[in-house]
């Protein structure tokens, strides 16, 4: 599993990335490699360590040991340079509820350093793409959850990042909206963006190019979705997941 091939196309890569909270190991020796344009799915039960791993990759949390690079930059020493290249949507809704929809976009665009012309244009485009024009001047607090998630995704994309981390982006979102979400994700990937997603919906996992199944802070299995199914003889990712996790538990 340690044999990760050096490849110029690889945009996210880790070597034995580990994070402990006190004695508790939340992420244990994570090794992954994600290529440009890939949709990488991170699966795992609650508390498996997905969010912790993503936060390390985004430079929000320092690893206890191990190394990693994102967009070619070291996640410890060059965390700040990574930040202008990535978009992040956290598991918990974290835009400002007491700002209007467009004000949230304006603020994040501004923080990413867009000049006022670009800012105006990006806000317009984002509202259009996310289908939020009609609630432009609404208070964010008043939006239904699914729309809030769309707004959060829009805000994460304002600065046109190369790599996008979506931590349970579709949690609590209705099926139609989820469908829209995934259309957008595929569209982004087709444009060369790399998408890193975590999800508890196994049907979503089917859309991923590669998946990695985490359990109790370790990766049990990872690879192309098709390859893994063949390897284990499972028909769906859901079966695959249950199979791997029960095996992991008994091991």
């Amino acid at each position, binding site marked *: 599993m340690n044999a990760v091939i050096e490849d110029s196309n690889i945009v996210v890569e880790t070597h034995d990335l580990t994070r402990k909270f006190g004695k508790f190991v939340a992420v244990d020796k994570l090794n992954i490699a994600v290529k440009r344009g890939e949709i990488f799915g991170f699966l795992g039960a609650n508390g498996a360590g997905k969010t912790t791993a993503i936060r390390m990759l985004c430079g929000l949390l*320092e690893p206890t040991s191990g190394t990693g690079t994102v967009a070619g930059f070291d996640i410890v020493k060059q965390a700040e340079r990574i930040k202008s290249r990535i978009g992040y949507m956290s598991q918990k*809704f974290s835009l400002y509820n007491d700002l209007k929809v467009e*004000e949230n976009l304006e*603020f994040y665009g*501004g923080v990413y*350093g867009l*000049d006022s012309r670009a800012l105006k244009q990006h806000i317009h485009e984002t509202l259009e793409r996310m289908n939020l024009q009609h609630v432009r001047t609404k208070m964010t607090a008043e939006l239904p959850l699914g729309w809030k998630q769309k707004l959060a995704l829009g805000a994460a994309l304002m600065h046109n990042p190369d790599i996008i981390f979506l931590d349970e982006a579709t949690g609590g979102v209705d099926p139609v909206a989820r469908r829209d979400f995934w259309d957008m994700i595929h569209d982004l990937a087709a444009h060369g963006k790399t998408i890193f997603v975590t999800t508890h919906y196994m049907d979503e996992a089917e859309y991923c190019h590669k998946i990695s199944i985490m359990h109790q802070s370790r990766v049990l299995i990872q690879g192309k979705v098709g390859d893994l199914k063949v390897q284990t003889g499972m028909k769906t990712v859901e079966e695959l997941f249950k199979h791997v996790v029960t095996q992991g538990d008994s091991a």
Partner: protein
Amino acid sequence: MSVIRHFVKKEFRQVFRDKQMLRMLLIVPIVQLIVLGNAINLDVKHVRLAIFDHDHSEVSRDLLSRFRSSDYFDIILADQSKLSALMDRGKIDISVVIPEGFARDLGSGSTAKAQLIVDAQNSNLAGIATGYVNGVFGSFQEDFRNRMLEKNPDIKSKIHSVEVVSRVFYNPEMNTYFATIPGIAVLLLTIITTLINALNIVREKEIGTLEQLMVTPISKFQFVMGKSLPFAILGYIELAIALAVGMLWFKIPFAGSFLLLAFSAALFLMTTLGAGLLVSTVAQTQQQALFTAWFFLVFCIIMSGFLTPIENMPTALQYLTYLDPLRYMIKVTRGIFLKGSTFFDLKYELAAMAIYGTAMFALAIFRFRKSTT
């Protein structure tokens, strides 16, 4: 620069949308200044005094009428047997007992004695009230001597005495609120700016929006400035309100330079906002932030000389007051406001504030972490 501008815009939008908070920030200080300016009144006037005259002489009646005509006392009529109960219940502050034979002793050259019973719970008040009583006795004594001397003109011509001609600068009526209003203004400024900065950031931590910010490429400096500038502006608004209340409501003349005061405020705000930021780096919840900031604030307030003149403190503590940024700002504000002190008059205080402000701000930026370890 534009990043900071967006920050300022965002904070202002949030502040102005939160009407409850806005009321707190703008109206409450006015109310507090007016209430506290009136409440902190150390001019001891209505001392409740009971007099028991056992002498019933012309002399004692003269004394009595002097007490009655003094502005400082409210005379309480009481039965001496109830005195101790009345004092226990706090109905009488001080009582004077003129014993039988007072006039006789005074005339004969032996010491005339009077007894004073003072409710001394508040030693300061007790001291001042005792001073007033002594003052009445003193002027009575002086007149008594003069009457004696009038009868002996040959001796009178040889007598010399010193009289005090006094002039009180800046505040001829010695109103307490001249000092307390600028003091409270600075106090409010300190409390509001320290707390608001700390609570605001910790609140973003609590609700998770801080994490979203930390994943952007914004620099520590931009973040700190973006958070502090809006509250610095708010601080200036508070200060302006306080000045207006002081000048218009309390009619305290502003003697110095507004520009110098604004400059001093900038130095001071760096300290308080920096302190708020520092608190936010150690607190996880708003409650913790409040209580942590509290320690800083209590230290600042007590050691500032606002409640008690610094020279009354034990020497060791007096040195400790040099660590208190509020000490300088209160001096500077009172100096500029009341005395028209200039930059050169206040150079040491301003230098101390500049050092404090820079250090605090730099420490806050240094301590602030975009990632958790």
